[in-house]
């Protein structure tokens, strides 16, 4: 989504390092509104901003962690799944995105029964492949 004919691989190195869940999810929303030749610069800015915020929060969290009540600690841990879920759900465009998200959620407890150590990979590849199948099936009909 960022490459132009002039893009060199070295232009993408920093982008590859800034990629994380939030950036990945938000880029699907923001990048179509950014001109293609400005997208790498846009991601550098967004990525560095996100990293700054997370570094500051990590430092604050680290110094607070020992003194937090269990309830507050649980509330903070709960932020991750809620924020990931809704930011991903918001950016679902095709039915295959929805299938991947819902099946990924549902299949994990099933895959966890295997206790293979790579449960998330098992459920993820399975659910993702089914979602891709749905995409193919819809593209054909």
């Amino acid at each position, binding site marked *: 989504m960022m490459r132009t004919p002039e893009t060199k691989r070295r232009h993408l190195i920093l982008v590859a390092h800034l990629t994380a869940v939030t950036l990945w999810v938000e880029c699907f929303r923001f990048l179509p509104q950014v001109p293609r030749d400005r997208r790498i610069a846009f991601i550098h800015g967004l990525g560095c901003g996100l990293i700054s915020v997370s570094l500051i929060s990590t430092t604050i969290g680290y110094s607070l962690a020992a003194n937090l009540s269990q309830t507050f600690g649980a509330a903070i841990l*709960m932020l991750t*799944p809620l924020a990931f879920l809704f*930011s991903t759900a918001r950016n679902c465009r095709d039915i295959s995105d929805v299938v991947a998200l819902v099946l990924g959620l549902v299949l994990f407890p099933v895959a966890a029964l295997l206790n293979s150590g790579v449960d998330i990979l098992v459920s993820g590849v399975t659910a993702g492949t089914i979602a891709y199948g749905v995409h193919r099936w819809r593209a054909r009909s």
Partner: protein
Amino acid sequence: MSYVSEFIGDWHALVILLVAGVFPNQIWRMLGLWFGSGIDEGSELLVWVRAVATAVLAGIIAQIIVQPPGALASVPGVVRYAALAVGCAAFFAARRSIFAGVVCGEIVMLAGKWWLG
């Protein structure tokens, strides 16, 4: 100096920690960069990769809820699932507002924890 070394502690351990953290991470980023440049962005392969990435992310979300880490394990399962369900309802009710979903989910979790212990 002594203050700094006290803060940093055993630097050998830190170097090992840094290498152990950076190395497995870098492999995938570099491989992605390497192979990614040869793939057409509209290709079917990338559609599959995106679907799998979304599903893996969903798996991580499910894992935190189903097999909660640390302090979250002190919250009963019913409360965690209820928080997720109410969060979802609020998310859709507020026309896909991430903020509404997160806030309502958290409120339910805190209320449930307070009630049920």
